[in-house]
């Protein structure tokens, strides 16, 4: 019954007739609106998806990282620090990390080589659950590595199908077998990553047996965090301690749209668009003025005319918004945002095809809608009201 009332409503019939009769007038506004909303929504979808995913993975990282510094630069950390750190009360899960970037000089590309202690039960279990069918025995018996998708594609392009020869700082070559590729779902973190045993990584980077890149540890009691940092600075003088909460802050800022250029660009684009709209509607448009004049002459009140213009604009706004947001969703979460993802993750090293996990922040979408709809409505209704308040005879002149 209500749908029948809607179908037979004279006002609605006139409104929809008007919309389609003057479709040439609306198509331009809809197209520009869809492009602006599509771009803004795409950027926000990518940033919120990346932020959400990275903050989730950060939960599994250690609370603190300790590294030795010399002249303000991080240098290799002595592995005997591990025992000294372990002696401090309140510290748990102390582990060494060996990682670094390996430069493939001929093409000026780099890989992130990470050494993993495969004799650690938890690490080996995680690795086996991550890479299906990984034979840990054969992995450990030969010099082998697991590579990210980006590394695999790059090495295959350069005819390193089964193995790759690393050039060590001593000038010798170390041939390492490519055991398996990491799943594509891990590209966000591991696209340029090479995982190998910790001893092999030491050999590739020329690290001594008593050296590690840095040391990670946990402090389960949050209230002890500042105290522990103080103790570490008393124990070692040439040390830098990085807290997880610092990294969390860095990630929050990293993809925060407020800090980026995108919001400024969006504001510039929106203001320009609204100015164009206002200019267009406030110009002495004979057809527009005549139309309002005729409606006034046949007995329409100012309120009726504003109501008509309001609904007409509301339809344009709603259709553009839904189209813009939906297209942005398809572009980011189904087609994985080609081109735009490079702005977020860079494109100077290995190409990366990241699968974005869908995250919709409805509050944010509501804000975009308000920031877009209110200026749009104002840009149309104010000039329409100006014409409507003039006498019909003058308006039709």
């Amino acid at each position, binding site marked *: 019954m209500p749908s029948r009332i809607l*179908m037979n409503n004279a006002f609605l*019939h006139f409104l929809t007739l008007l919309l*389609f009769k003057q479709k040439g007038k609306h198509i331009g506004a809809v197209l520009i609106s869809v492009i602006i909303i599509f771009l803004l929504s795409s950027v926000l979808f990518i940033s919120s998806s990346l932020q959400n995913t*990275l903050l989730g*993975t*950060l939960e*599994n*990282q*250690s609370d603190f*990282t300790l*590294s030795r510094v010399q002249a*303000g*630069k*991080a240098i290799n950390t002595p592995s005997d620090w591990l025992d000294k750190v372990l002696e401090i009360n309140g510290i748990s899960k102390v*582990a060494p*990390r060996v990682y670094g*970037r390996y430069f493939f000089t001929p093409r*000026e590309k*780099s890989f*992130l080589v990470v050494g*993993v202690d495969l004799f650690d039960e938890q*690490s080996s279990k*995680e690795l086996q659950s*991550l890479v299906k069918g990984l034979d840990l025995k054969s992995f450990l018996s030969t010099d082998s590595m697991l590579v990210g998708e980006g590394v695999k594609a790059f090495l295959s392009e350069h005819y390193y199908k089964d193995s790759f020869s690393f050039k060590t700082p001593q000038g010798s070559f170390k041939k390492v077998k490519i055991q398996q590729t*990491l799943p594509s*779902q*891990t*590209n*966000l*973190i*591991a696209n*340029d*990553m090479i*995982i190998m045993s910790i001893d092999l990584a030491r050999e590739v980077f020329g690290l001594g047996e008593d050296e590690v890149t*840095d040391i990670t540890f946990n402090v389960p009691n949050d209230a002890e965090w500042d105290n522990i940092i103080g103790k570490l600075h008393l124990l070692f003088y040439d040390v830098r301690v*990085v807290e997880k909460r*610092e*990294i969390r802050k*860095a*990630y929050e*800022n*990293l*993809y925060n749209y407020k*800090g*980026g250029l995108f919001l400024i660009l969006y504001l510039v684009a929106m203001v320009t668009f609204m100015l164009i709209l206002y200019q267009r509607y406030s110009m002495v448009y004979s057809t527009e003025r005549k139309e309002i004049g005729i409606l006034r002459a046949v007995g329409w009140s100012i309120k009726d005319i504003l109501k008509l213009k309001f609904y007409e604009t509301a339809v344009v706004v709603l*259709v553009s918004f*839904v*189209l813009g947001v*939906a297209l942005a*969703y398809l572009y980011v979460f*189904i087609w994985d945002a080609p081109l735009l993802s490079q702005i977020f*993750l*860079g494109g*100077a*090293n290995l190409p*990366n095809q*990241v*699968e974005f*996990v869908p995250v*919709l922040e409805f509050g944010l979408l509501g804000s975009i809608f308000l920031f877009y709809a209110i200026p749009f409505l104002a840009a149309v209704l104010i000039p329409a009201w100006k014409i409507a308040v003039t006498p019909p005879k003058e308006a039709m002149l």
Partner: protein
Amino acid sequence: MIKEFTILVSMVLLLAGFVLVHYVTHNGISSKEMLSSVTKVTKLSSPTLSVAYYEPRVLSYEEVLNPAYPQMQTMNKMDLVYAK
């Protein structure tokens, strides 16, 4: 309401419905679990920034220095896009 308008509204609603259905039914947990596994194994959670050799790859652990002016605050292209 005229027929064309009804068709337009139906198409827009269909598109919005498709997006909502995809959002509700998409299983993002497996991807997140895999990423967590990588972090557990490597103890690194930094995103793969495809950066040039002189730019930092592992966030918060690597910093770039201008060799000519080591005390000058450095800026790379990622800083230009994001806040620091």
